[in-house]
Structure formats: structure tokens, C-alpha cells
């Protein structure tokens, strides 16, 4: 239960970081360390170099810019959980964070770490998918952007070259008033999600659904957006029968199966949670009208 020896590096700037990453073979980047250190302790990973991002101040920020929330990759989950700007502008992040690990892991865990680790059950990538977030990457060839839809290349594999780093994430905010909901079923609070559902919903002047976004975590290797369901909701009144139809849609998605949880149980939960999330989000949207 102790890591194998490694060399430790602690850069202070993004430039120093990019240079280090390019020059170190078999290196791991440590952000909050809440997933990496267990893997080091159990020697699932045995890197020669560990590069610590914790002293790079410029990777830690929360700000609003051009109608979007921008969050630095090294911003801690507990900071986002208690941030006033996030509470006002993107409160669903805080609803989701309540389900991310525990009090002690959120003290260290970061948003960038969660997005790069890309656990199938992770809540924060699901919220990024909900907002069509953009991920900003730095590397020796300069900077580039990746849309969240293109971020997962497969099981726990982000679209990040070995010499690249995630610097920040942009969440474009909805201009129209809307409601939100994040609901999750896990065996205990803080355990990995069996299914988690995030939902944003805007109503028009007549009370019909004008815009909807639904994303699911835990069901597949990456967050799943229910684009067809979202499209079918437009123009509908937010009633029980509308939510039920959306739930039927959600139950048809392909789901992962593991030793504890069958795919059909995940599908069932996906349906139940989508209906509940739509109901809660539409009630909240009513208030914003």
C-alpha cells in the first residue's frame, strides 16, 4: 500500500509545466490526487515522475466572461461548492458536487482532475456535457480547444496527448431564464453513481418547453446527452405525460453492466431520474419566468 519511488516536480507556471511534461518520460500529473494517489498506493500506476500542479496559481480561478463561466483546472471542488458566482449563475454545479466523493476528498479534488480522470460515474464531466463546455488545452504546439462531446476517446481516456495539459473549462451560460436539477442514485451518498441525471429546462411565454438539455452519467463510458429526447420536448407542455414520454426515451439508451448493477436496472433508473429531474427543473423554471 505504498507507492513505488518516483521523482517529484513542482512547477510554478504553465510554461514551466508544459516544458516539464515534454521532457519527462512515464510521468503522471497530480492535481487533487484523490484518484491518482490510491492508484499510486496500490501500485496500479508506477510513474517515474510525478508532476504536481498544486503550486500553479494561474490554474485556480472562477470567473464570468462573455456570457460564460470559466473555471481553472486546479480549482478545488470545495471552492466551486461554496462560490457565490457559481451559486448565482450555475447552481447545478453545486447540486452535482454534493455527490462528488466526500467532504474530505472535495477539499483536495479539482474540476480539471475529474475531467482528465474521466471516470464513467463522475458528475462533473456530466455537467460539462450539459453545458456543451469547452476544454482548453496547452502543450508544446500551443493551445487548442476541445468540445466536451469530443473529449472522451473511450473508457477513462480523454482526448489529451501525453505532452498536453488541461488549463481551464468554459461553461457557456444559457441566456434564457431556466430551471435546473441534478439527481443521482448511488448505494450511499458519495459512492460512485449508478445513474446521475443533470437537466436544464427553459419555458417560453406560454409555458411550453423552449429549450432542454439532459445528460446522464454512470450509464456509459462517457456522459451521454439525450439529444433526441431534448428535441422531442421542444414545444411540449411540462406535464406528467411529457415527462413520462421522456423517461421512456431515456430507458432505451445502451447502458454499462458490472458485477453489481445490470444494464436493465441502469436503464430503469435512467428513466425514473429523467422524469424526476424534468419535473424539478420545470418547477424551478416556472419561478424564473
Amino acid at each position, binding site marked *: 500500500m505504498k507507492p513505488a*519511488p518516483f521523482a517529484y516536480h513542482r512547477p510554478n507556471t504553465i510554461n514551466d509545466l508544459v516544458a516539464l511534461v515534454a521532457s519527462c518520460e512515464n510521468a503522471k500529473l*497530480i492535481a487533487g490526487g484523490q484518484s491518482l494517489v490510491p492508484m499510486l498506493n496500490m501500485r496500479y500506476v508506477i510513474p517515474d515522475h*510525478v508532476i*504536481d500542479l498544486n503550486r500553479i496559481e494561474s490554474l485556480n480561478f472562477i470567473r464570468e466572461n462573455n456570457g460564460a463561466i470559466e473555471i481553472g483546472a486546479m480549482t478545488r471542488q470545495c471552492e466551486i461548492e461554496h462560490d457565490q458566482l457559481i451559486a448565482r449563475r450555475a447552481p447545478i454545479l453545486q447540486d452535482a458536487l454534493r455527490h462528488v466523493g*466526500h*467532504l*474530505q476528498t472535495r*477539499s*483536495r479534488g479539482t474540476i480539471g482532475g475529474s475531467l482528465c480522470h474521466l471516470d464513467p460515474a463522475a458528475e462533473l464531466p456530466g455537467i460539462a456535457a450539459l453545458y456543451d463546455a469547452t476544454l482548453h488545452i496547452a502543450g508544446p504546439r500551443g493551445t487548442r480547444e476541445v468540445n466536451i462531446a469530443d473529449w472522451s476517446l473511450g473508457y477513462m481516456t480523454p482526448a489529451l496527448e501525453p505532452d498536453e495539459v488541461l488549463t481551464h473549462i468554459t461553461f457557456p451560460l444559457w441566456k434564457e431564464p431556466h430551471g435546473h436539477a441534478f439527481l443521482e442514485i448511488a448505494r450511499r*451518498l458519495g459512492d460512485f453513481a449508478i445513474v446521475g441525471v443533470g437537466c436544464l429546462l427553459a419555458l417560453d411565454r406560454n409555458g411550453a418547453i423552449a429549450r432542454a438539455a439532459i445528460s446522464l452519467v454512470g450509464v456509459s463510458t462517457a456522459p451521454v446527452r439525450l439529444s433526441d429526447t431534448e428535441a422531442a420536448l421542444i414545444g411540449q407542455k411540462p406535464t406528467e405525460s411529457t415527462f413520462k414520454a421522456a423517461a421512456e426515451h431515456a430507458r432505451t439508451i445502451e447502458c454499462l453492466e458490472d458485477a453489481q448493477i445490470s444494464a436493465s436496472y441502469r436503464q430503469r433508473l435512467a428513466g425514473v431520474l429523467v422524469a424526476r429531474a424534468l419535473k424539478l427543473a420545470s418547477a424551478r423554471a416556472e419561478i424564473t419566468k
Partner: protein
Amino acid sequence: MTEQTAPMRERITLTVNGTSVEGLVEPRQHLGDFLRQNLGLTGTHLGCEHGVCGACTVIVDGHPIRSCLMLAVQADGANVTTVEGMAKADGTLHPLQAAFRAHHGLQCGFCTPGMLTTLHAFLSANPNADESAIREAISGNLCRCTGYESIVDAALAAARIMQGGA
């Protein structure tokens, strides 16, 4: 893997329970082992060492963290409070410790340091926490003796005393 040579060591300086300490650590040593092995502060218990049980919780710069998931070298410059730092110098127990005793909030005692440090940090930030908030706060701390009821009772009793400025 590169060939094994003498392990690289890093010098760190941090404050532990109000006292400045120095250490020479291998980068792979986690904070929990540093506290126990280098400083002899064995009040911090190591259970699972992969971030599940919560027994090793200590307070770093005001936040409760799992000391098995933070490298000692990362605590360079940090302010750390362990369970040994909760009672007063004259031995007077912290209200949480006194409440754990009064309400039978422990049996074998293995999870206790993690429970105490987690609740210390949580109640300091959330003095008006109710029962469900307290249960949520200790959801990352496993206890196999008490069934949690007596721990929650103790935390609620301590919260009332801590609000009173004790």
C-alpha cells in the same frame, strides 16, 4: 522504470498543531505516514490507505483531508491539525472529544480520530448544522462499532456547546 539509486528526498517545513516542524521526506511518502513515522503522532490512524475509510483525516489549512491521499511533500508550508491538536495544552478535552465520551461516540476507537477531525472542521465552518447535515459530513468516515447513532448524538451535543462559545 529507471534504475534504482538512493531515493530523492525533499526538505519540507510545515506547522503541525501550532508547532513548526521540518522533515526530510521521500516524495512517495504520504502525509499520514509522515505524521505517524517521522513525528510520532500516532493519533492519526491509517485504515485503508486508498481514500475510503476516513480514519486518517487531518485538517490542512482549515479543510478536512485524507492524509493517505496527500503526499507529505505537498504539505510543505501548510498548517496541519491532527487529533492530538484538539485538546488544550492542559489536557482539557475539546467539546467534541468530551461529547464523544459522554455519548459513547466510540467503542474500539479506530475511526475516532477521523470522526473528530472531520467534525471539528465541519462544525467550525457550519456551526448550525442539523442532524442530516452532520450525517452527510461524516458519510466518508466508516465506523463498524457504533452504528453512527451515538456519534451523531455526540456531534449534535458538541455543536450546541461550540455555538455557545465554549
